[in-house]
Structures are given as structure tokens and as C-alpha cells.
């Protein structure tokens, strides 16, 4: 198998202390390989969001190690970690988090702006991604005027614009109706299939999880079962 893009060793996350102590993650060790699609499945409170935050370098573990491309991240300075996130990760959120006052193009080029890319290059890359997602005609629209599905597509465009190696999707279809959900799912798995992007999906939706190559079933801060094979992909 290829080198793991993300790996964890004995990952522990504890919130609070004493009587209010809550063990969100109880020592997880696993690997995610490049080009894989992985679903982290569990009920709310199972620790799946906490795990994603740790994998996405948004949070630091209480103990244990997260390694990116074989290198432990824990020792890195916050500025370096921010830069790593900007370079290698793309984020798709359930609530979209689009800035309603800005145009779609401005919204989706935000990661490039943060990376310090010039405006014309930013816009060129932004338009490329929008065309890829059939959103080019909405580039100049204000984000607030988009439908739910369009918003999530804009959100995916924003996640793709910096050409990430790993795409994190936190309940990507949680706010969408069935039809729109299908479209968004098709886009996500199309990217995974055609562009080899590593996909990490956090969801409690069994149907969505079933489309992933690997499923980590979480309960009370532990991985209870691990399933392989995309059982639910309907041709």
C-alpha cells in the first residue's frame, strides 16, 4: 500500500477535569492512505467531530500523535500548522460558512488569498474550479443569493481551489434535501475517483458512509468496528 497521508497513534482527547472530565477520544490508532475515501461514522457525542478536528490540525490532542505524510505535527509551531492546513487540506462544512456580502468568486478564493497569492492568479484559479463544478455563471453573484445546493457546491469549490491532498467534509449533506444531496455526493466521490483526492467524510448518514471505501464506526470515543468496501455505491 502507499504511504499513509494521515496516521494517528494512541490519540487521546480529554475535555475538562475532575468531576466534569470527559474522555472524547480514548486512544485511537489508525492510518489513512493517499487516495482513500474514509467515512467516520457515529452518533452525536461519539467523538467523530473531535477526531476530525484533530486530523485536520484544528485542535491539539491531549496525548498521542497525529502525523502528516509520516511527520509528527504536534511539535510544529502554530504558524507552520496554519500553513500546512492551508496547503494540504480542503474543508466542506455543513453550514457552508460563506460570507454573504462577498461574491461567489471572492468566497471561494479565500484560501488562496490567505496563502498570499496575487489577485489575478487567484481569480483565474477560482474560475477554473467554478467551471469544473458548473458554477462559472454564478461567479459574480453574492453568496447570499444562492440555493442550498449551489452554496454547498461553492463550498466544495473553495475546498478545492488550493488543490488539496485531503478533503475533509463535515456532514456535507446535512443541510440539503435528498436530490441535492445526491448531486453533492456525486461531486465529492467524482473528485475522489477522477482526481485521486483523499476524502475524509464525517457523517451520521449511513447512505453517505456506505459510498466510502472504508468506514470507521465510532462509539464513546472508540472505533468499535471498521468496514471495508464501498457497499452502497449504486452504479
Amino acid at each position, binding site marked *: 500500500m502507499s504511504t499513509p497521508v494521515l496516521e494517528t497513534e494512541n490519540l487521546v482527547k480529554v475535555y475538562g477535569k475532575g468531576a466534569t472530565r470527559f474522555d472524547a477520544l480514548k486512544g485511537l490508532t489508525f492510518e489513512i492512505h493517499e487516495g482513500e475515501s474514509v467515512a467516520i461514522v457515529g452518533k452525536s457525542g461519539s467523538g467523530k467531530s473531535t477526531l476530525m478536528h484533530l486530523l485536520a490540525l*484544528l485542535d491539539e490532542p491531549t496525548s498521542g500523535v497525529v502525523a502528516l505524510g509520516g511527520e509528527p505535527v504536534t511539535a510544529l509551531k502554530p504558524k507552520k500548522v*496554519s500553513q500546512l*492546513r492551508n496547503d494540504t487540506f480542503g*474543508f466542506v462544512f455543513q453550514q457552508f460558512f460563506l460570507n454573504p456580502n462577498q461574491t461567489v468568486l471572492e468566497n471561494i478564493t479565500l484560501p488562496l488569498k490567505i496563502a498570499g497569492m496575487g489577485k489575478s492568479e487567484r481569480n483565474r484559479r477560482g474560475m477554473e474550479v467554478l467551471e469544473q463544478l458548473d458554477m462559472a455563471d454564478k461567479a459574480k453573484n453574492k453568496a447570499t443569493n444562492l440555493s442550498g445546493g449551489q452554496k454547498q457546491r461553492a463550498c466544495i469549490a473553495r475546498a478545492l481551489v488550493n488543490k488539496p491532498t485531503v478533503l475533509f467534509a463535515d456532514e456535507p449533506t446535512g443541510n440539503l434535501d435528498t436530490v441535492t444531496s445526491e448531486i453533492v455526493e456525486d461531486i465529492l466521490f467524482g473528485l475522489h475517483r477522477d482526481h485521486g483526492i483523499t476524502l475524509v467524510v464525517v457523517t451520521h448518514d449511513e447512505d453517505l458512509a456506505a459510498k466510502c471505501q472504508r468506514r470507521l464506526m465510532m462509539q464513546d470515543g472508540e472505533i468499535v468496528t471498521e468496514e471495508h468496501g464501498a457497499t452502497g455505491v449504486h452504479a
Partner: protein
Amino acid sequence: MRSVDVARTALGNTFRSKLRTALTVVAIVIGSFTLTLTSGLGAGVNKYVDTVVAGFGGSSQMFVMSTGASDAEPTDGPAEYDPEAAASTGGMFGPGSGGGVLTDSDIEEIEQIENVSSVDPMVFVSPDFIETPDGERYDMELDVPANALGLELAAGEAPGEDGMELSIPEDWLTIFDTEDAEQVIGETVEIGISNVTGEQSTVEAEIVGVSEEALSGIGATPMPSRELNQQLNELSMEGYEGQAQNAYTMAVVDVENIEASEQGVKDALIDQDLLGLTVEDQIGAVQGVIDAVSWVLSGFGLIALLAASFGIVNTLLMSVQERTREIGLMKALGMSSGKVFGLFSMEAVVIGILGSVIGVVLGLGAGLVGNAWLTGEGGPLGAVAGLTLFAVDPLAIAGITALIVFIAFLAGTLPAARAAKKDPIEALRYE
């Protein structure tokens, strides 16, 4: 994120809630307007004083007064009579006026000081009347010849050392039934003065100049030449029996090489209980007062700015609160805390720049228009020649702008630190 993008984004964010930004900017504008006006006022009046000094042009003169201090040692009960002291503390201001007067012996002592080339005791004369060629008489007061250097002339020249010469103020042209200042130059007038026995006598003098009134008051009354002043003084002393004990309020001392020897002469004068002041010293004292007044006024401007800076803190704190999720998103997408801090401080700086620029422009406008109205032709202060109440000092303007932007930046640091500290996970969960 590039600096240019930080600046552009900050500018965009500032205009997102326009009313709130506008209100915050107004507070800054008030402060910056006040500062611009007060500093311009100080600069304007000082500039006027400077032009007056320039009229004296590198004067080698020093004005000497008696400090009178050593003669007036405080005593319990009545002090013993001392003829010398009595003469030097009496004179025209009378006893108890505090400052003493100069006696003939003082004048002799001044003459002995090194580098002093001449001493000219100043004498006030009070003539009874001035008579025009067609025989009409007018009441008059005379200025002292030592002030001739500060005279602003509308026509002719200042009365000199020699010759029976006289300058008259511009508004005295009416006694010659003319409005053209040039016409009265060369006219001869008679000046009447009474001596100690009450006998009146007259001297003739030629009008050589027409003066404008300066802010200092010089030029508001006729000014005689030294010789005319001396003649009038002699006429007024005629009939005085006994030994005249002359008393002078002031003496004008010419100092050789004044730049180098100024301090030496002053020290020597202090040893004689005398005080020597150069023209610069006197003007300096005036400018000191003007500076003090403009600083006090600027203090009010600073208080306004202080209040305004809390407005910035408030506005930005609200903005940080409202944009919690946006901040969280930016941090999640890889923006460093330092850049988030930079972005929000930049928004404070944008508010500061807006406020200071608008305030400075309004202040300059108000100052220049006010100056033109007050000191212009027909304005309330239009009669004072060469008066400027407001001047543009580019250095002060730049300083005010820099100060306000700095204050705005300081005010922005608290909200900016709040924004930078936000945890992306918490921020994205925030509803």
C-alpha cells in the same frame, strides 16, 4: 495573506456596516478638527509674531530695565530713608509699582560694560496737542522712538535718529482731509507741550511716514524721531529748579557683536540689578504664551480623541463578536493569528485615517476661511496689518494625522487581540 490584501480586506470590512463606521469616524473627526484648528491658530499667530521680529532684522539692541529687587528688601515697619533708593524706585510709576526705574548712575554703569557701544535712555514725553498747517489742533500721545523698528508702514519711512521727524497712524489721515497716505508725506505740523511751570511752547516736525497698526499696538499713535523726542523732553523740563534727577523706565543699549556677547552683557547687567532683554527674548516670551494657549486648546482636542478611541474599541469589539464565524473560518483555512490581529488592527487604522483626513481637511477649511473672514478687508480684525490667525504647518498636519492613526491603532489592539485569540473550532460552532 499579502499586506495589500490585508489592507483591501480591512477597507472593505470597514464599510460593511456604514452607519456604525460613520459614527465612529465622526468622533475622530471632532478630535482631529480641533487639533488642526488649534495648531493652525498657534502657527498662524506665531508666524505673525515672526514677521514682526523679521522687521527688527538681526537687531543689535538690548532693552534694559531695573529689576528694583535689591532696593526693596522687605523690612518690618517703615524702612530707613535712602536718597538713592528713593529716586530709583520712585519716578513716573510711583513707589510700590514693583519695578524700579533707571537713574543716571545706572546709565553710566551700563556704559562701562564690555561690548556696550552706546546707551540711549528712553524718555516718555506727553505733548499737549498737534497742530495742522491749517491751524486745527488735536489731542495727542506719542510713542517712544525705540519702537520705530516695529513700525509697519503704509507710506514713507520710519522717523530716524536725527531731524525733527514724525510718523502718523493711517486713521489720522482724516485730519488732512485725504485718504492717500502719500499726500501727507512732507507736511509740516506743530507740536505743543507744557513745561513744569505750565508754560506752553511748540516745535515743528515733518511727517515722514504713515503707519499701520500692528497687533502689538505699535503704529497706533504718532511716533517721533529721537531728536524730536529729545527736544520735546527738554521743553517739558524747562523751568525745573534744582538738580533734575532723571528717571528712565528703560534704556536701549547697542551691543557689539550681540550673538557672542549677549550672555556676558546680560550677566553684567544682573550684577547691577538690571535686566537686559533682546528683541528675541521679548518676542520669545510672547510666543511662549501663544504656545501655552494653543497647547491647552490642543489638550481639549486630545480629550476628544481619547473619547473617540473608546468608540473604536467598542465598534471593533462588536464587529469581532459579529464576525466570530468568519474569523473561525479564516483561521481554519490557514490564516495565522498574527494576520488576524493585523487585519483587525488595520480596520482600526482605516477608521483612524478616515477620521483624521476628514477632520484635518475640515479644520484647514474652517481655519483658512475663518482667517480670511476675520483678518480680511473689512473683517473685525482687518485693521491689524499683516495679521494671520491661521497658518498651515505641513509638519504639524502630518504629526496630527500620525498621532490619530497611532491612537486608532492602539484602540484597535484590544479587539484585534480578541479576534486573534479565537479558537477556530469554537468559532465555527458559534451560532
